[in-house]
Protein backbone atom coordinates (compact mmCIF):
# COMPACT_ATOMS: atom_id res chain seq x y z
CA UNK A 1 0.00 0.00 0.00
CA UNK A 2 3.03 2.26 0.15
CA UNK A 3 3.41 1.93 -3.59
CA UNK A 4 2.40 4.81 -5.80
CA UNK A 5 -1.12 4.22 -7.10
CA UNK A 6 -0.91 3.78 -10.85
CA UNK A 7 -3.32 2.65 -13.52
CA UNK A 8 -2.16 0.90 -16.68
CA UNK A 9 -3.82 1.36 -20.02
CA UNK A 10 -2.71 0.24 -23.43
CA UNK A 11 -3.65 0.68 -27.06
CA UNK A 12 -2.49 -1.18 -30.20
CA UNK A 13 -1.59 0.40 -33.54
CA UNK A 14 -0.81 -1.07 -36.96
CA UNK A 15 1.69 1.65 -37.88
CA UNK A 16 3.48 4.74 -36.66
CA UNK A 17 1.21 7.07 -38.59
CA UNK A 18 -2.57 7.14 -38.73
CA UNK A 19 -4.17 4.87 -41.31
CA UNK A 20 -7.68 3.56 -41.82
CA UNK A 21 -7.23 0.64 -39.41
CA UNK A 22 -5.43 2.62 -36.69
CA UNK A 23 -8.50 2.71 -34.47
CA UNK A 24 -9.19 -1.03 -34.57
CA UNK A 25 -6.30 -3.06 -35.94
CA UNK A 26 -6.81 -6.81 -36.18
CA UNK A 27 -4.42 -8.78 -34.00
CA UNK A 28 -2.29 -9.85 -36.97
CA UNK A 29 -1.79 -6.22 -37.97
CA UNK A 30 -0.64 -4.90 -34.61
CA UNK A 31 2.90 -3.59 -34.85
CA UNK A 32 3.03 -1.11 -31.99
CA UNK A 33 1.56 -1.13 -28.47
CA UNK A 34 1.22 2.05 -26.47
CA UNK A 35 1.50 1.44 -22.72
CA UNK A 36 0.43 4.22 -20.40
CA UNK A 37 1.15 4.70 -16.74
CA UNK A 38 -1.33 7.07 -15.14
CA UNK A 39 -0.53 8.34 -11.69
CA UNK A 40 -1.95 11.22 -9.73
CA UNK A 41 0.78 13.47 -11.13
CA UNK A 42 1.49 12.39 -14.68
CA UNK A 43 0.69 10.18 -17.64
CA UNK A 44 3.67 8.50 -19.20
CA UNK A 45 3.30 6.48 -22.39
CA UNK A 46 5.74 4.48 -24.44
CA UNK A 47 4.81 3.21 -27.88
CA UNK A 48 6.78 -0.03 -28.25
CA UNK A 49 7.29 -2.60 -30.96
CA UNK A 50 4.89 -5.54 -30.61
CA UNK A 51 4.90 -9.02 -32.14
CA UNK A 52 1.32 -10.31 -32.62
CA UNK A 53 2.48 -13.90 -33.07
CA UNK A 54 4.31 -14.11 -29.75
CA UNK A 55 2.39 -11.35 -27.97
CA UNK A 56 5.77 -10.00 -26.93
CA UNK A 57 6.65 -6.35 -26.65
CA UNK A 58 10.16 -5.16 -27.44
CA UNK A 59 11.07 -2.64 -24.77
CA UNK A 60 14.15 -1.53 -26.68
CA UNK A 61 12.07 -0.71 -29.77
CA UNK A 62 10.64 2.64 -28.73
CA UNK A 63 8.53 4.19 -31.49
CA UNK A 64 7.43 7.27 -29.56
CA UNK A 65 6.78 8.58 -26.09
CA UNK A 66 4.47 10.91 -24.26
CA UNK A 67 4.79 12.58 -20.89
CA UNK A 68 2.21 14.95 -19.47
CA UNK A 69 2.58 16.58 -16.06
CA UNK A 70 -1.00 16.93 -14.95
CA UNK A 71 -0.71 19.72 -12.39
CA UNK A 72 -0.05 22.26 -15.11
CA UNK A 73 -1.49 20.34 -18.04
CA UNK A 74 -4.63 18.47 -17.01
CA UNK A 75 -5.83 18.22 -20.61
CA UNK A 76 -2.63 16.44 -21.68
CA UNK A 77 -1.77 18.85 -24.48
CA UNK A 78 1.90 19.59 -23.76
CA UNK A 79 3.94 16.49 -24.46
CA UNK A 80 7.27 16.97 -22.68
CA UNK A 81 8.63 13.51 -23.39
CA UNK A 82 11.64 14.84 -25.24
CA UNK A 83 12.46 17.52 -22.68
CA UNK A 84 13.24 16.20 -19.23
CA UNK A 85 15.37 13.42 -17.87
CA UNK A 86 12.69 10.82 -17.33
CA UNK A 87 14.85 7.85 -16.49
CA UNK A 88 12.77 7.32 -13.36
CA UNK A 89 9.70 6.85 -15.55
CA UNK A 90 11.62 4.44 -17.75
CA UNK A 91 12.44 2.32 -14.73
CA UNK A 92 8.78 2.30 -13.70
CA UNK A 93 7.82 1.18 -17.18
CA UNK A 94 10.40 -1.59 -17.05
CA UNK A 95 8.62 -2.99 -14.01
CA UNK A 96 5.25 -3.22 -15.76
CA UNK A 97 3.15 -6.23 -14.78
Amino acid at each position, binding site marked *: EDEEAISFSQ*YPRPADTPQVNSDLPDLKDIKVMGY*SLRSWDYRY*TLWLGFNPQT*FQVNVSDVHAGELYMLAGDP*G*QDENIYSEPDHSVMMRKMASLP
Partner: protein
Amino acid sequence: RKRNVLFIMADDLRTSLGCYGDPVVKSPNIDQLASKSQVFLDAYAQQAVCAPSRTSMLTSRRPDTTRLYDFNSYWRVHSGNYTTMPQYFKSRGYYTMSVGKVFHPGIASNHTDDYPYSWSIPAYHPASFRFEKEKMCKGEDGKLHANLLCAVNVTEQPGGTLPDMESTDEAVRLLKTRASDDVPFFLAVGFHKPHIPFRIPQEYLSLYPIDQMTLAPDPNVPKLLPPVAYNPWMDVRKRDDVQKLNVSFPYGPIPKDFQLRIRQHYYAAVSYMDAQVGRLLSALDELGLADSTMVVFTSDHGWSLGEHGEWAKYSNFDVTTRVPLIFYVPGVNRFNEWLGEFTFSFVDVLTQSELSFKNAKVGRNVVELVDVFPTVSYMAGLGAPEPCPDVSFQEKLCTEGHNLAYTFQHREQG
Protein backbone atom coordinates in the same frame (compact mmCIF):
# COMPACT_ATOMS: atom_id res chain seq x y z
CA ARG B 1 -28.04 -11.66 5.02
CA LYS B 2 -28.01 -12.03 1.28
CA ARG B 3 -26.56 -9.21 -0.76
CA ASN B 4 -27.74 -8.93 -4.34
CA VAL B 5 -25.74 -7.14 -7.01
CA LEU B 6 -27.07 -4.78 -9.66
CA PHE B 7 -24.20 -4.12 -12.03
CA ILE B 8 -24.89 -1.28 -14.45
CA MET B 9 -22.65 -0.51 -17.39
CA ALA B 10 -22.84 2.35 -19.81
CA ASP B 11 -21.21 2.24 -23.24
CA ASP B 12 -18.59 4.87 -24.13
CA LEU B 13 -19.48 7.03 -21.13
CA ARG B 14 -16.69 9.37 -20.11
CA THR B 15 -16.89 11.13 -16.76
CA SER B 16 -19.32 13.68 -18.17
CA LEU B 17 -21.62 13.43 -15.20
CA GLY B 18 -22.72 15.94 -12.60
CA CYS B 19 -21.20 13.81 -9.85
CA TYR B 20 -17.83 14.05 -11.61
CA GLY B 21 -18.01 17.83 -11.73
CA ASP B 22 -19.17 18.28 -15.31
CA PRO B 23 -20.95 21.66 -15.37
CA VAL B 24 -22.90 21.03 -18.58
CA VAL B 25 -24.34 17.56 -18.48
CA LYS B 26 -27.57 16.76 -16.66
CA SER B 27 -27.44 13.35 -14.99
CA PRO B 28 -29.61 13.61 -11.87
CA ASN B 29 -30.33 9.91 -11.44
CA ILE B 30 -26.69 8.83 -11.53
CA ASP B 31 -25.87 11.84 -9.35
CA GLN B 32 -28.48 10.68 -6.87
CA LEU B 33 -26.90 7.22 -6.83
CA ALA B 34 -23.50 8.85 -6.31
CA SER B 35 -24.85 10.89 -3.41
CA LYS B 36 -25.35 7.65 -1.50
CA SER B 37 -22.27 5.83 -2.74
CA GLN B 38 -18.52 5.63 -2.85
CA VAL B 39 -17.47 7.53 -5.96
CA PHE B 40 -14.04 6.85 -7.43
CA LEU B 41 -13.00 10.00 -9.23
CA ASP B 42 -9.89 8.56 -10.87
CA ALA B 43 -10.81 5.18 -12.31
CA TYR B 44 -9.33 4.03 -15.61
CA ALA B 45 -10.08 1.37 -18.22
CA GLN B 46 -7.30 -0.92 -19.39
CA GLN B 47 -7.96 -0.38 -23.11
CA ALA B 48 -10.26 2.21 -24.64
CA VAL B 49 -12.35 -0.03 -26.86
CA CYS B 50 -15.36 -2.18 -26.01
CA ALA B 51 -14.44 -5.87 -26.25
CA PRO B 52 -10.94 -5.72 -24.77
CA SER B 53 -12.09 -3.46 -21.94
CA ARG B 54 -15.18 -5.49 -21.05
CA THR B 55 -13.33 -8.80 -21.21
CA SER B 56 -10.55 -7.33 -19.08
CA MET B 57 -12.91 -5.96 -16.45
CA LEU B 58 -15.13 -9.04 -16.27
CA THR B 59 -12.16 -11.42 -15.95
CA SER B 60 -10.01 -9.00 -13.91
CA ARG B 61 -7.12 -9.67 -16.27
CA ARG B 62 -5.26 -7.11 -18.34
CA PRO B 63 -5.40 -7.23 -22.15
CA ASP B 64 -1.92 -8.76 -22.22
CA THR B 65 -3.38 -11.70 -20.28
CA THR B 66 -6.69 -12.00 -22.13
CA ARG B 67 -4.67 -11.42 -25.32
CA LEU B 68 -7.69 -9.64 -26.68
CA TYR B 69 -6.85 -6.31 -28.32
CA ASP B 70 -9.48 -6.47 -31.06
CA PHE B 71 -12.95 -8.10 -31.32
CA ASN B 72 -11.91 -11.39 -32.83
CA SER B 73 -11.22 -14.03 -30.20
CA TYR B 74 -12.83 -15.68 -27.19
CA TRP B 75 -10.55 -15.72 -24.18
CA ARG B 76 -11.46 -19.24 -22.99
CA VAL B 77 -9.92 -20.78 -26.12
CA HIS B 78 -7.50 -17.99 -27.08
CA SER B 79 -5.66 -17.29 -23.82
CA GLY B 80 -7.04 -19.13 -20.79
CA ASN B 81 -10.26 -20.50 -19.33
CA TYR B 82 -10.61 -17.60 -16.92
CA THR B 83 -13.48 -17.36 -14.48
CA THR B 84 -15.54 -14.22 -14.94
CA MET B 85 -17.08 -12.08 -12.25
CA PRO B 86 -20.66 -13.28 -12.92
CA GLN B 87 -19.41 -16.85 -13.20
CA TYR B 88 -17.81 -16.50 -9.78
CA PHE B 89 -21.12 -15.30 -8.33
CA LYS B 90 -22.99 -18.08 -10.11
CA SER B 91 -20.63 -20.66 -8.65
CA ARG B 92 -21.40 -19.26 -5.19
CA GLY B 93 -25.12 -19.80 -5.54
CA TYR B 94 -26.19 -16.57 -7.17
CA TYR B 95 -28.78 -16.38 -9.94
CA THR B 96 -26.94 -14.41 -12.62
CA MET B 97 -28.59 -12.50 -15.46
CA SER B 98 -27.39 -10.33 -18.32
CA VAL B 99 -29.47 -7.65 -20.00
CA GLY B 100 -28.20 -5.62 -22.95
CA LYS B 101 -24.50 -5.13 -23.67
CA VAL B 102 -22.45 -6.55 -20.81
CA PHE B 103 -19.93 -8.76 -22.54
CA HIS B 104 -19.12 -7.51 -26.00
CA PRO B 105 -21.41 -9.61 -28.21
CA GLY B 106 -20.09 -11.81 -31.02
CA ILE B 107 -16.85 -13.75 -31.21
CA ALA B 108 -15.41 -12.06 -28.12
CA SER B 109 -18.01 -13.78 -25.94
CA ASN B 110 -18.51 -16.91 -28.07
CA HIS B 111 -21.72 -15.56 -29.65
CA THR B 112 -23.48 -16.41 -26.37
CA ASP B 113 -22.40 -13.62 -24.01
CA ASP B 114 -20.45 -16.40 -22.29
CA TYR B 115 -23.61 -18.34 -21.44
CA PRO B 116 -23.86 -20.75 -19.68
CA TYR B 117 -20.53 -20.13 -17.94
CA SER B 118 -21.44 -16.67 -16.69
CA TRP B 119 -25.21 -16.61 -16.66
CA SER B 120 -28.03 -18.70 -15.22
CA ILE B 121 -30.24 -17.87 -18.19
CA PRO B 122 -29.39 -16.77 -21.75
CA ALA B 123 -28.48 -13.12 -22.07
CA TYR B 124 -31.22 -10.74 -23.13
CA HIS B 125 -30.70 -8.35 -26.04
CA PRO B 126 -33.28 -5.75 -26.98
CA ALA B 127 -34.98 -6.60 -30.26
CA SER B 128 -34.90 -3.00 -31.43
CA PHE B 129 -31.11 -2.94 -31.40
CA ARG B 130 -31.05 -4.39 -34.89
CA PHE B 131 -32.29 -1.06 -36.19
CA GLU B 132 -29.32 0.73 -34.67
CA LYS B 133 -27.15 -0.11 -37.67
CA GLU B 134 -29.80 0.69 -40.25
CA LYS B 135 -30.83 3.98 -41.81
CA MET B 136 -33.13 5.31 -39.13
CA CYS B 137 -32.39 9.04 -39.01
CA LYS B 138 -34.53 11.48 -40.90
CA GLY B 139 -32.35 13.88 -42.87
CA GLU B 140 -33.09 17.35 -44.17
CA ASP B 141 -34.05 15.73 -47.46
CA GLY B 142 -36.83 13.82 -45.70
CA LYS B 143 -35.10 10.50 -46.36
CA LEU B 144 -33.64 8.09 -43.82
CA HIS B 145 -29.87 7.98 -43.30
CA ALA B 146 -27.30 6.24 -41.13
CA ASN B 147 -26.33 9.46 -39.40
CA LEU B 148 -24.18 10.16 -36.38
CA LEU B 149 -26.70 12.70 -35.10
CA CYS B 150 -29.97 10.86 -34.86
CA ALA B 151 -32.47 12.39 -32.47
CA VAL B 152 -35.79 10.68 -33.18
CA ASN B 153 -39.43 10.72 -32.32
CA VAL B 154 -39.61 7.45 -30.44
CA THR B 155 -43.25 6.89 -31.35
CA GLU B 156 -42.15 6.73 -35.00
CA GLN B 157 -39.46 4.11 -34.32
CA PRO B 158 -40.12 0.40 -34.95
CA GLY B 159 -42.06 -0.92 -31.99
CA GLY B 160 -42.28 2.59 -30.59
CA THR B 161 -39.19 2.04 -28.50
CA LEU B 162 -35.38 2.18 -28.37
CA PRO B 163 -32.89 -0.47 -27.20
CA ASP B 164 -32.07 0.99 -23.78
CA MET B 165 -35.76 1.48 -23.02
CA GLU B 166 -36.36 -2.16 -23.85
CA SER B 167 -33.42 -3.24 -21.71
CA THR B 168 -34.75 -1.27 -18.76
CA ASP B 169 -38.17 -2.88 -19.17
CA GLU B 170 -36.60 -6.33 -19.20
CA ALA B 171 -34.34 -5.59 -16.24
CA VAL B 172 -37.30 -4.37 -14.20
CA ARG B 173 -39.24 -7.46 -15.18
CA LEU B 174 -36.37 -9.66 -14.03
CA LEU B 175 -36.09 -7.75 -10.75
CA LYS B 176 -39.76 -8.42 -10.11
CA THR B 177 -39.25 -12.13 -10.64
CA ARG B 178 -36.37 -12.18 -8.15
CA ALA B 179 -37.77 -9.83 -5.51
CA SER B 180 -39.28 -12.49 -3.29
CA ASP B 181 -36.78 -15.24 -4.02
CA ASP B 182 -34.32 -16.32 -1.34
CA VAL B 183 -31.62 -16.99 -3.91
CA PRO B 184 -29.46 -13.86 -4.26
CA PHE B 185 -29.13 -12.39 -7.72
CA PHE B 186 -26.45 -10.74 -9.81
CA LEU B 187 -28.15 -8.70 -12.50
CA ALA B 188 -25.92 -7.01 -15.06
CA VAL B 189 -27.53 -4.35 -17.20
CA GLY B 190 -25.53 -2.92 -20.07
CA PHE B 191 -26.92 0.21 -21.67
CA HIS B 192 -25.98 0.99 -25.27
CA LYS B 193 -25.75 4.75 -24.90
CA PRO B 194 -24.02 7.15 -25.21
CA HIS B 195 -22.35 4.99 -27.90
CA ILE B 196 -22.83 6.24 -31.45
CA PRO B 197 -25.08 6.65 -33.36
CA PHE B 198 -26.78 9.18 -31.14
CA ARG B 199 -30.16 7.60 -31.81
CA ILE B 200 -31.98 9.06 -28.86
CA PRO B 201 -35.36 10.58 -28.01
CA GLN B 202 -35.36 14.04 -29.54
CA GLU B 203 -36.70 15.75 -26.43
CA TYR B 204 -33.37 15.32 -24.64
CA LEU B 205 -31.75 17.77 -27.07
CA SER B 206 -33.79 20.54 -25.50
CA LEU B 207 -31.67 20.23 -22.36
CA TYR B 208 -28.68 21.47 -24.33
CA PRO B 209 -29.51 24.50 -26.49
CA ILE B 210 -26.98 24.66 -29.30
CA ASP B 211 -26.21 28.32 -28.59
CA GLN B 212 -25.03 27.30 -25.13
CA MET B 213 -22.70 24.59 -26.37
CA THR B 214 -18.97 25.18 -26.37
CA LEU B 215 -16.09 23.50 -28.15
CA ALA B 216 -13.57 21.36 -26.30
CA PRO B 217 -11.08 23.59 -24.50
CA ASP B 218 -8.25 22.12 -26.61
CA PRO B 219 -9.79 21.36 -30.02
CA ASN B 220 -6.52 21.22 -31.98
CA VAL B 221 -4.14 18.32 -32.44
CA PRO B 222 -1.20 19.05 -30.09
CA LYS B 223 2.00 19.94 -31.95
CA LEU B 224 4.13 17.39 -30.14
CA LEU B 225 1.64 14.53 -30.19
CA PRO B 226 3.33 11.53 -31.82
CA PRO B 227 1.32 10.44 -34.89
CA VAL B 228 1.12 6.90 -33.50
CA ALA B 229 -0.87 8.22 -30.54
CA TYR B 230 -3.55 9.77 -32.73
CA ASN B 231 -6.76 7.90 -33.53
CA PRO B 232 -8.49 8.95 -36.76
CA TRP B 233 -12.06 8.23 -35.46
CA MET B 234 -13.08 6.14 -38.46
CA ASP B 235 -16.44 5.08 -36.97
CA VAL B 236 -17.47 8.72 -36.70
CA ARG B 237 -16.26 9.49 -40.23
CA LYS B 238 -18.28 6.65 -41.71
CA ARG B 239 -21.65 8.02 -40.64
CA ASP B 240 -23.62 9.52 -43.52
CA ASP B 241 -23.86 13.03 -42.10
CA VAL B 242 -20.13 13.17 -41.31
CA GLN B 243 -19.17 11.82 -44.74
CA LYS B 244 -21.07 14.71 -46.28
CA LEU B 245 -18.69 17.11 -44.51
CA ASN B 246 -15.76 15.81 -46.59
CA VAL B 247 -13.41 16.01 -43.62
CA SER B 248 -9.71 15.48 -44.40
CA PHE B 249 -8.06 12.25 -43.32
CA PRO B 250 -6.59 11.76 -40.77
CA TYR B 251 -6.58 15.01 -38.83
CA GLY B 252 -9.71 16.78 -40.00
CA PRO B 253 -10.88 18.99 -38.40
CA ILE B 254 -14.65 18.68 -38.25
CA PRO B 255 -16.34 22.07 -38.88
CA LYS B 256 -16.95 23.88 -35.61
CA ASP B 257 -20.73 24.06 -35.93
CA PHE B 258 -20.85 20.28 -36.36
CA GLN B 259 -18.49 19.81 -33.40
CA LEU B 260 -20.98 21.71 -31.27
CA ARG B 261 -23.79 19.46 -32.46
CA ILE B 262 -21.81 16.31 -31.70
CA ARG B 263 -21.22 17.54 -28.18
CA GLN B 264 -24.89 18.47 -27.81
CA HIS B 265 -25.99 15.02 -28.94
CA TYR B 266 -23.47 13.21 -26.72
CA TYR B 267 -24.70 15.08 -23.64
CA ALA B 268 -28.31 14.42 -24.62
CA ALA B 269 -27.48 10.73 -24.99
CA VAL B 270 -26.01 10.76 -21.49
CA SER B 271 -29.19 12.31 -20.09
CA TYR B 272 -31.32 9.76 -21.92
CA MET B 273 -29.22 6.90 -20.53
CA ASP B 274 -29.36 8.52 -17.09
CA ALA B 275 -33.15 8.40 -17.27
CA GLN B 276 -33.00 4.64 -17.89
CA VAL B 277 -30.71 4.26 -14.87
CA GLY B 278 -33.26 6.23 -12.87
CA ARG B 279 -36.10 4.00 -13.99
CA LEU B 280 -34.11 0.92 -13.03
CA LEU B 281 -33.04 2.21 -9.62
CA SER B 282 -36.49 3.43 -8.70
CA ALA B 283 -37.88 0.00 -9.58
CA LEU B 284 -35.23 -1.60 -7.38
CA ASP B 285 -36.34 0.67 -4.56
CA GLU B 286 -40.07 0.14 -5.08
CA LEU B 287 -39.53 -3.61 -4.98
CA GLY B 288 -37.93 -3.27 -1.56
CA LEU B 289 -34.52 -4.33 -2.81
CA ALA B 290 -32.51 -1.15 -2.21
CA ASP B 291 -31.45 -2.27 1.25
CA SER B 292 -30.23 -5.65 0.11
CA THR B 293 -28.68 -4.86 -3.26
CA MET B 294 -25.24 -3.51 -3.99
CA VAL B 295 -25.29 -1.23 -7.02
CA VAL B 296 -22.21 -0.74 -9.17
CA PHE B 297 -22.18 1.80 -11.98
CA THR B 298 -19.40 2.12 -14.52
CA SER B 299 -18.57 2.25 -18.22
CA ASP B 300 -16.26 0.31 -20.53
CA HIS B 301 -14.22 3.46 -21.32
CA GLY B 302 -14.66 7.10 -22.22
CA TRP B 303 -14.96 9.08 -25.47
CA SER B 304 -13.19 12.10 -26.90
CA LEU B 305 -15.43 15.07 -27.53
CA GLY B 306 -13.05 17.05 -29.70
CA GLU B 307 -10.16 17.24 -27.22
CA HIS B 308 -6.80 17.13 -29.05
CA GLY B 309 -8.73 17.28 -32.35
CA GLU B 310 -9.99 13.77 -31.70
CA TRP B 311 -13.33 12.01 -31.46
CA ALA B 312 -14.41 8.57 -30.30
CA LYS B 313 -12.28 6.24 -28.17
CA TYR B 314 -9.23 4.30 -29.44
CA SER B 315 -6.52 6.25 -27.58
CA ASN B 316 -4.70 6.47 -24.25
CA PHE B 317 -5.83 10.00 -23.40
CA ASP B 318 -7.67 10.40 -20.09
CA VAL B 319 -10.86 11.40 -21.87
CA THR B 320 -11.02 7.90 -23.35
CA THR B 321 -9.61 5.80 -20.51
CA ARG B 322 -11.15 7.52 -17.49
CA VAL B 323 -14.51 6.11 -16.45
CA PRO B 324 -17.14 6.62 -13.78
CA LEU B 325 -16.96 4.06 -10.99
CA ILE B 326 -19.60 4.17 -8.29
CA PHE B 327 -20.33 1.64 -5.54
CA TYR B 328 -23.54 1.78 -3.54
CA VAL B 329 -23.23 -0.73 -0.73
CA PRO B 330 -26.20 -0.84 1.66
CA GLY B 331 -25.11 -0.77 5.26
CA VAL B 332 -21.63 0.39 4.36
CA ASN B 333 -21.93 3.67 2.57
CA ARG B 334 -25.55 4.64 2.49
CA PHE B 335 -25.61 8.32 3.27
CA ASN B 336 -28.24 11.06 3.44
CA GLU B 337 -30.74 8.58 4.67
CA TRP B 338 -34.09 9.67 5.99
CA LEU B 339 -36.49 7.15 7.41
CA GLY B 340 -39.43 6.51 5.19
CA GLU B 341 -37.97 8.16 2.13
CA PHE B 342 -37.13 6.35 -1.03
CA THR B 343 -33.46 5.76 -1.64
CA PHE B 344 -33.76 6.13 -5.39
CA SER B 345 -36.68 8.26 -6.49
CA PHE B 346 -36.89 8.67 -10.25
CA VAL B 347 -35.84 12.13 -11.35
CA ASP B 348 -37.33 13.24 -14.66
CA VAL B 349 -34.57 15.43 -16.03
CA LEU B 350 -36.95 16.92 -18.60
CA THR B 351 -39.11 18.47 -15.89
CA GLN B 352 -36.75 18.58 -12.91
CA SER B 353 -33.48 19.61 -14.50
CA GLU B 354 -32.76 22.06 -11.70
CA LEU B 355 -32.53 19.25 -9.14
CA SER B 356 -28.97 18.56 -8.05
CA PHE B 357 -27.22 16.18 -5.68
CA LYS B 358 -23.98 16.40 -3.80
CA ASN B 359 -21.51 13.58 -3.51
CA ALA B 360 -21.28 12.34 0.04
CA LYS B 361 -17.94 10.59 -0.22
CA VAL B 362 -15.38 10.44 -2.95
CA GLY B 363 -12.19 8.46 -3.45
CA ARG B 364 -9.36 10.22 -5.24
CA ASN B 365 -6.95 7.33 -5.42
CA VAL B 366 -6.08 6.09 -8.91
CA VAL B 367 -7.93 2.80 -9.52
CA GLU B 368 -8.62 0.51 -12.46
CA LEU B 369 -11.47 -1.49 -13.93
CA VAL B 370 -9.59 -4.72 -13.14
CA ASP B 371 -10.25 -3.76 -9.51
CA VAL B 372 -14.01 -4.12 -9.92
CA PHE B 373 -14.19 -7.94 -9.77
CA PRO B 374 -12.29 -8.36 -6.48
CA THR B 375 -14.03 -5.38 -4.92
CA VAL B 376 -17.57 -6.41 -5.80
CA SER B 377 -16.87 -10.00 -4.74
CA TYR B 378 -15.44 -8.91 -1.43
CA MET B 379 -18.21 -6.42 -0.68
CA ALA B 380 -20.82 -9.08 -1.46
CA GLY B 381 -19.21 -11.29 1.15
CA LEU B 382 -17.78 -13.88 -1.23
CA GLY B 383 -14.15 -12.99 -0.78
CA ALA B 384 -11.92 -11.50 -3.43
CA PRO B 385 -10.01 -13.83 -5.77
CA GLU B 386 -6.34 -14.28 -4.98
CA PRO B 387 -3.85 -12.10 -6.86
CA CYS B 388 -2.62 -13.67 -10.08
CA PRO B 389 0.92 -14.99 -10.32
CA ASP B 390 3.24 -13.36 -12.87
CA VAL B 391 2.20 -15.91 -15.47
CA SER B 392 -1.46 -16.80 -15.03
CA PHE B 393 -2.68 -18.40 -18.26
CA GLN B 394 -3.36 -21.66 -16.41
CA GLU B 395 -5.03 -19.97 -13.41
CA LYS B 396 -8.80 -20.13 -13.74
CA LEU B 397 -9.56 -17.78 -10.87
CA CYS B 398 -7.34 -14.89 -9.85
CA THR B 399 -7.21 -11.13 -10.15
CA GLU B 400 -4.77 -8.69 -11.65
CA GLY B 401 -6.55 -5.88 -9.82
CA HIS B 402 -6.84 -4.81 -6.21
CA ASN B 403 -9.66 -5.15 -3.76
CA LEU B 404 -10.67 -1.54 -3.14
CA ALA B 405 -12.72 -2.35 -0.08
CA TYR B 406 -10.09 -0.91 2.27
CA THR B 407 -10.51 2.47 0.59
CA PHE B 408 -14.13 2.54 1.70
CA GLN B 409 -12.79 3.21 5.19
CA HIS B 410 -10.52 6.03 4.02
CA ARG B 411 -12.98 8.35 2.41
CA GLU B 412 -12.55 12.01 1.81
CA GLN B 413 -15.33 14.52 2.21
CA GLY B 414 -16.80 15.46 -1.14
